[in-house]
């Protein structure tokens, strides 16, 4: 099942849109509501503030085989609070995702192995408990997918991913 998801994520039909929106109450709701009522499929949506406190930035990932990315872009433009939309899919970009992964550890040996895996992925163990550890991993989605794939055998208890954020280079 996880493998399927990984395969799906490698699908080249994925489109990344970056939308600058006014940092006002309800704007996320307007975007989400637009997606819902137009029956657009969102893979991920990450929102945060920018260098300008009045502007928020959304990174929206769409599976273009199911949803026409250009139509999403044009419909976003119709929202009054949307300042700018750019499809950065074909532009040189830095793309990142953050994930926290809680893995089951049954003994000290496992804990050591997991620490090693984390190191290999240049990620960190950020919490250690009696029967679990939390790993923080940052990188492109494939990297997150890969570590998830490796850790699967140990028993993944919980995963949270931020969704893709993207910034054009230069």
């Amino acid at each position, binding site marked *: 099942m996880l493998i399927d998801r990984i395969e799906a994520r490698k699908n080249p039909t994925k489109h990344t849109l970056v939308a600058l929106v006014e940092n006002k109450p309800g704007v996320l709701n307007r975007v989400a509501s637009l997606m819902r009522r137009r029956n657009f499929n969102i893979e991920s949506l990450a929102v945060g503030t920018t260098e300008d406190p009045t502007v928020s930035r959304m990174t929206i990932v769409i599976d273009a085989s199911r949803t026409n990315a250009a139509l999403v872009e*044009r419909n976003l433009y119709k929202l*009054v609070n949307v300042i700018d939309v750019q499809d950065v899919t074909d532009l040189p970009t830095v793309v990142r995702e953050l994930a926290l992964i809680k893995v089951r550890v049954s003994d000290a040996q496992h804990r050591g192995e997991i620490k090693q895996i984390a190191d290999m992925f240049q990620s960190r163990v950020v919490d250690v408990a009696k029967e679990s550890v939390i790993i923080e991993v940052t990188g492109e989605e494939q990297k997150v997918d890969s570590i998830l794939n490796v850790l699967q055998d140990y028993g993944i208890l919980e995963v949270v991913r931020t969704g893709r954020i993207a910034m054009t280079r230069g």
Partner: protein
Amino acid sequence: MLTCEPLKSYEEGCGLNEEEMNMKLTGAQVIWETIIQQGTNVVFGYPGGAILPTYDALVDYQDRVHHVLVRHEENAALAADAYFRATGKVGVCMATSGPGATNLVTGLANAMMDSSAVVAITGQVASYLVGSDAFQETDVTGVTLPITKHNYLVMDVNELPQVMAEAFYIARSGRPGPVLVDICKDVQQKMVDYEPIASVQMRGYRAIKPHGRQDIPALLQRAKELIDHARRPIILAGQGIKHGNAHEEFRAFVEKSGIPVATTLLGIGVLSEDHPLNLRMMGMHGEAYVNQAIANADLLIALGMRFDDRVTGNLKTYAKNARVIHVDIDAAEINKNVPADVGIVASVKDVLRELTPMIEKRSYPAWMEQINEWRADTQARDVLNVALPDDMLLAPHVMRAIWEETKGECTICTDVGQHQMWETQYFQHTRKNQLITSGGLGTMGFALPAAIGAKFGRPDDEVWAIAGDGGFQMSIPELATVMQEKLDIKIAIINNNFLGMVRQWQELMHNHRYSAVEMWTPDFVKLAQAYGMCGLRATNIKEAREVIRRAREHKGPVLIEFVVEKETNVFPMIQPGKSLNEMTRRPIQPAALGGGMEFMKEKAR
């Protein structure tokens, strides 16, 4: 007394005193000031607790704004919508919080679907009560989010002047649409420094937002080339031509290009229907020759229309061999339903101004001959060819009679259903924006409130509301509004004791299984009289003409009930999912009616 002394201050120079320069107004006053400044002088509304401060302030504005007390908030929104369509000025409706505001929903959805500039002002509970489930509190911005172009909740009076100005600007600019402003009760009462806002600058909103960077000259050049090479072109004309006030440019383009025109339902009236190149309405109930022309075209020039499914039928088979030029002010319409070879995001007016000089003056004799051949076949099937017996009246005859008696000099507001389609088929629209009808949403009950709105917009015009017995029963209460406002409106009810269009679908697609479509109706003539209105009835064509004449002579509102044949169908018809060339046609009509209603019922040949 003349004086040569210099003016003491700027204020004195303007003829304003200090107080006026720094005008302090209540939120309620700001609302009325903005409405007046925006050029709207009629507001359709219904008061209630949360909007009371605004109604209180209305007392001081009565000489500048006329408030129409409707009998249901939905009709306030529908009337405001029709007021916009009749005048081009933003329609304004007003309601209180909670149920008042939620009652606007259908009217706002109607304005959204048909791109009408409407500003709805609703009262909200006091700002300190928002979120507490206070009496008559509803999350109105949440409720109306998907059915407005934009909406606001105003909790701070200092934002109100700007928000009000933005609301009007958003409503009428670009692709028009409804904007709702939900204003807390205490905001209406608080004072604010008010200065009229002359122009609105908004950070994100642009009236036209093209997709990417458009190379307009290159797109126009490609459009010209497609037009040059076309042998069977057709123009699909939509409401965008009306909204962009591009009637003149459109006519010039049509006449120079020599390309025949098919209109959408809402595009009726963008070109006079007696113009030789106007083929008239396309789509589900468009005349067969129009749909045949589209199905066989090699070029579609779609102007300010959005390829609604009622227009295209099955998209897979829609105008298969046609290249497509699509011009729309809304970028999201390009490639939404039908892929465009040339898609231009701009106002139709601007595009036609550029494009018309670029093209050759042409005509398409062979193409027109083919269309006329199809047209002759359609005319041979016209139900009006049949001499009706004295005890029978058909709705198409009523529509034709209204057209002939008024000589087409009137504004028509229709409801939704069979009568609406018969109106488009048998009334020849020669005037600009003559037909006001609910297109995209198909709102039953539209006709009467729309006629009220249209009458305020066009007080000197003859206004007809044409409704079915079903839709009319949804707006009966507005007869009281008509009387209170002394509006000279002629109301025609086409009564077949059925929800006619639903019955037609049940007959054709559900094997005659009539479910919940038979309608008991009141005595409409007595009903009219109960409201103090003149009531008339007609049951055959002779009476129909007589009552139409009497109604027109009568100064004041008249309600006419036309009792028509119960089970007639609107043909032609493209059944849902079918292609343009799979229409269910009218049969070729016999010269005289030989018993039964079979002549109306033949299926596709």
